[in-house]
């Protein structure tokens, strides 16, 4: 099927690539179907694009590339929701807030996007201890 995307024009995706966010994302609770679109080979960034709404496209980054010791606990309930037993099928992304100039951009480390890439189930987890990781972690000064 073809979908309209925010940044990449019309893109052909396969139905089996669609990732279900059962509860949407905070602020976008009604938007439940997304696909991950890579930007380029070897790019640490990707796009989380709504299947149905062209204008809903988030920029994602792999947080571990920017904060090497990034770690958090998943509760049993989160694991159940994502239907994962270990971290085996789990992908962790952070939503990027891009700013001009690029060095002012930030990563949301407080609410990682977790994806069971085998079963295509995902959620944005709000880390309970809000002091551990910031909502706006600066890209500049990290290892990038």
């Amino acid at each position, binding site marked *: 099927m073809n979908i309209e995307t925010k*940044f990449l024009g019309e893109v052909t995706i396969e139905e089996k690539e669609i990732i279900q966010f059962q509860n949407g994302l905070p602020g976008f609770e009604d938007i439940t179907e997304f696909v991950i679109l890579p930007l380029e080979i070897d790019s640490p960034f990707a796009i989380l694009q709504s299947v149905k709404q062209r204008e809903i496209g988030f920029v994602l980054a792999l947080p571990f*590339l920017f904060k090497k010791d990034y770690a958090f606990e998943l509760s049993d309930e989160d694991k159940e929701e994502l239907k994962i037993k270990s971290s085996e099928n789990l992908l962790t992304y952070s939503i990027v807030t891009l700013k*001009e100039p690029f060095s002012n951009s930030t990563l949301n480390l407080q609410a990682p996007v977790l994806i069971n890439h085998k079963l295509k189930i995902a959620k*944005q987890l709000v880390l309970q201890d809000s002091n551990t990781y910031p909502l706006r972690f600066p890209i500049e000064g990290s290892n*990038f």
Partner: protein
Amino acid sequence: MLVLSRKKDESIMIGDQIELKILSIDGDQVKLGIVAPKNIKIYRSEVYESIQKQNQESLNVSKSLIEQLLKKNL
């Protein structure tokens, strides 16, 4: 909005599984104890709201920033 008055050590039930108890009152600060099933997520409202706002803000991306991003390979 339902409004109830409670004193210290009194509580309210929300449904039959969630209990909200007033643990202490000190000036304008109230300490609440919450008993709820584990699958109920509890956040300070401002934390959840700040995530909502940040998500909204992160959608504000110009095409030129995306083009800069495309050049940022590892």
